[in-house]
């Protein structure tokens, strides 16, 4: 079967990377003026020369975003189901060897967390879990989707890759979206970052969105995690991946996220940090290359930067997020434990008190620290002040199985 893996191997990475590093101002201007951009144009727009003319890039990105999406920002919230994981990823707080506090939400916990998010206004939810066949089985995920399908207009998933049959069951249960980040499109860096677990399979992960589409998912989310490898090369790769998916998975609504590494357990220092100005350039360049693709900015980014990027090309945002299971209500806190070498080891009551972040919050460890701590209502009000409408519902459960 044809997949993006074949195309990925054949792309002229070296010449595209060279252009992204050294494009002239004239090349940037020419690419900026074109109606339909190819990867060469994108490389030009990612260049330092394009960065010098960021305002022009921003204006073009803004105009295009308004035309295609209007003056609206769609809102969603992540709901972390579990922070158990069998992978070791050097940058991730959930890595199996990190001695963090772990928990997997039970049915009642999931419903409680879901209702708390609904009460805040969210109608689109993203279920997130670490990769762990024992704690986070396909059956468990299908059950969680089923519990929330009636409560939310749209239920999406960001979980470890599954096979096509498992994906079909999740679609049947009512899931409509699947998010899977490649993390880094640089094979060498990928190998160095993912030191143990099934996530080491680079090609398998790269094919996941296509598998999910074939199984019936209607929305696909992809992205690189910026900070691991050269951001310009990552952006070219993610754009090539998006362009492939638009051709082959033509009925799916595609989103591209632009997460940057945040501080987390394990204290990993990003080897190739992406600056604020460069993040803005990245978003604008992606918008020009992918005029109709949703661009997602999460609460990883601080308020000031998020506010500034609303009029520039972002179309989807999370708000008021927690990255620990039980974070919205404290659900599951009595079962928090450690999982050294796959065994569940209880945490004493006094230790739970010691780590408690308050009466109501979750006490399991989060995946990373969020930077924009404003509530959903505050973010909604801010979006309105900026002259955009916050949209909470833009899907209907009737459109899903």
């Amino acid at each position: 079967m044809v997949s993006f893996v074949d195309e990925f191997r054949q792309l002229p990475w070296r010449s595209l990377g060279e252009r992204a590093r050294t494009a002239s101002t004239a090349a940037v201007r020419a690419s900026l003026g074109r109606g339909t951009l190819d990867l060469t144009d994108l490389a030009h727009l990612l260049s330092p020369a394009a960065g010098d003319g960021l305002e022009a890039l921003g204006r073009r990105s803004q105009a295009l975003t308004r035309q295609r999406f209007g003056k609206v920002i769609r809102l969603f919230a992540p709901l972390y189901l579990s922070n158990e994981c069998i992978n070791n990823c050097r940058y991730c707080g959930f890595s199996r060897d990190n001695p963090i506090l772990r928990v997997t939400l039970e049915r009642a916990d999931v419903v409680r967390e879901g209702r708390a998010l609904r009460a805040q206004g969210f109608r689109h939810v993203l279920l997130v879990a670490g990769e762990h066949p024992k704690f986070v089985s396909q059956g468990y995920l299908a059950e969680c989707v089923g519990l929330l399908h009636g409560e939310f207009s749209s239920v999406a998933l960001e979980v470890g890759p599954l096979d096509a049959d498992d994906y079909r069951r999740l679609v049947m249960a009512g899931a409509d979206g699947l998010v899977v980040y490649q993390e880094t499109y640089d094979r060498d860096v990928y190998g160095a970052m993912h030191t143990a677990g099934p996530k080491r399979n680079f090609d398998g992960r790269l094919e996941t969105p296509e598998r999910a589409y074939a199984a019936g998912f209607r929305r696909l989310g992809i992205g690189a995690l910026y900070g691991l490898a050269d951001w310009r090369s990552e952006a070219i790769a993610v754009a090539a991946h998006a362009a492939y998916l638009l051709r082959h998975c033509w009925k799916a609504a595609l989103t591209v996220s632009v997460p940057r590494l945040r501080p987390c357990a394990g204290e990993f220092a990003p080897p190739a940090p992406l600056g604020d100005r460069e993040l803005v350039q990245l978003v604008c360049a992606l918008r020009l290359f992918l005029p109709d693709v949703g661009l997602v900015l999460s609460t990883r980014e601080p308020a000031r930067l998020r506010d500034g990027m609303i009029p520039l090309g972002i179309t989807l945002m999370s708000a008021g997020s927690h990255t620990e299971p039980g974070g919205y209500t404290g659900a599951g806190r009595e079962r928090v434990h450690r999982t050294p070498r796959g065994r569940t080891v209880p945490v004493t009551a006094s230790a739970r008190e010691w780590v408690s972040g308050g009466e109501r919050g979750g006490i399991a460890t989060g995946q990373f620290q969020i930077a924009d701590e404003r509530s959903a209502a505050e973010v909604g009000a801010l979006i309105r002040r900026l002259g955009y409408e916050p949209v909470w519902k833009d899907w209907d459960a009737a459109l899903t199985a």
Partner: protein
Amino acid sequence: MFMSVRNQPWRVAGREFQSRLILGTGKFASPESMREALLASGAELVTVALRRADLSGSRDPFANILEFIDAQRYLILPNTSGALNAAEAVRLARLAAAAGLPKWIKLEIHPDPRYLLPDPIETLAATQTLVQEGFVVLPYINADPVLAKRLQEAGAATVMPLGSPIGSNRGLQTRDQLHIILEQATVPVVVDAGLGAPSHAAEAVEMGAAAVLVNTAIAVARDPVRMAEAFRAAVEAGRAAYESGLPEPQGMASPTSPLTGFLD
């Protein structure tokens, strides 16, 4: 705005409309600005994406777009945007009717979320089902004359061919096909999508389209109210011109006082 009273009304499924401008409700910066633009446009028919609305009957404050559209003033035309196939569109239409919305449906089945081009096969199938169930069906289609005929045979109340892809602001790229659809039509033809400027809307109505549907050009304008007024004036002017008898374009100049006039 004086011309509207002199232009003829048009009818869909026995219902009369004076305004020939139908508005879409997506992409606005706020529900308040949408409400003002609707008012300024003089529209009597307003379409709403069901995926944006609350269909549960619980008056969801986070999906309250319908509360900004006065159902006394406008006929709300629910649309099935987001539906991938006939089954989904039919499901949405039934839900909308069950939620108390008018049994009118603007059928939008566009599986490709980028260009939003309508699927002709699924659209025909959904039209057949919904007409049988008593819906007034207004299908959004590509400018395909044969499909337009097939839909009319299936009982569609109008056909709504596109001028160019939704949101593209490119005007009547399908002009030649639209002429054939208009020439053969037995129901009102509404040009839907791609009208980026009042002149595009005027041109569609001058050609004989019964009405036009506009959304993006008004919603994302710097001043949506003034843009709504501009479209309203253009549509009224276009219709007045159509009713007055537009001259055929000629290949060469022809004097207004013919040289052989004295022989008459």
